[in-house]
């Protein structure tokens, strides 16, 4: 299953990057969102996959059952998801503000600071 997910991750990176190379600001944001998904999945898969044994300690037990999933990548991904959300919310508002100011979604029109 790791192999398949590796392909999915590659696909997410590819489409994300493709969207980022478009001229539309909205596509850019969508692309970044895909990139974030890809990175999160990558960390998750990097810690290897385990089916159906979450790292929870049963009431009264001392440790999670043997063969339970690696909890650390999960914690890392959780942090990354939340951070990603914060960034994305800001990005969306930036996009909105940009559109209100410039009345365009075309990134090629946004070169006034450099030319």
């Amino acid at each position: 299953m790791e192999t398949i997910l590796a392909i999915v991750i590659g696909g997410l990176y590819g489409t994300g990057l493709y969207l980022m190379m478009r001229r539309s600001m909205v596509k850019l944001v969508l692309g970044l969102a895909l990139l974030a998904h890809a990175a999160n999945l990558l960390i998750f898969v990097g810690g290897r996959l385990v089916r159906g044994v979450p790292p929870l300690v049963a009431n009264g037990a001392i440790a999670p059952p043997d063969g339970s999933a690696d909890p650390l990548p999960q914690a890392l991904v959780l942090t990354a998801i939340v951070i990603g959300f914060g960034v994305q919310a800001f990005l969306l508002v930036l996009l909105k503000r940009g559109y209100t100011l410039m009345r365009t979604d075309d990134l090629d029109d946004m070169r006034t600071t450099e030319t």
Partner: protein
Amino acid sequence: MNSLILSTATRLLLPLMLLYSVFLLIRGHNEPGGGFVGGLVAASAIALIKFSSGLERARAALRFDPITLVGTGLLFAFASGLLPLVAGMPFLTALWWDQKIPVLLKAGTPVLFDLGVYVLVVGVVLTMIFALSEE
């Protein structure tokens, strides 16, 4: 948006959702859940008021300025880190009270920390939603 059904439903749902959010917060240390998800549920409860009865009502129901909630949440989490410093331990060391408080299972600085996360998430989400709806 001001439909009667929605506002009635909200009035009924609101306490339930808030309760559920607190439940998620508390159980988080032992089962899936935690401050973040709990906070999101609580925030959506308030957001529901906004959609049913308008921004002013939602603000009134919240009582606090959401930005202040953000600050308060950070402060709680931060304080849970500072307390151990007083006891001569490193920043954010978990300290636990010996006595078990019923319902809450055990009380300690990690719980305070999670509570901070909860409050902050409510503040953050509502700041965003309120600001976006004021446009």
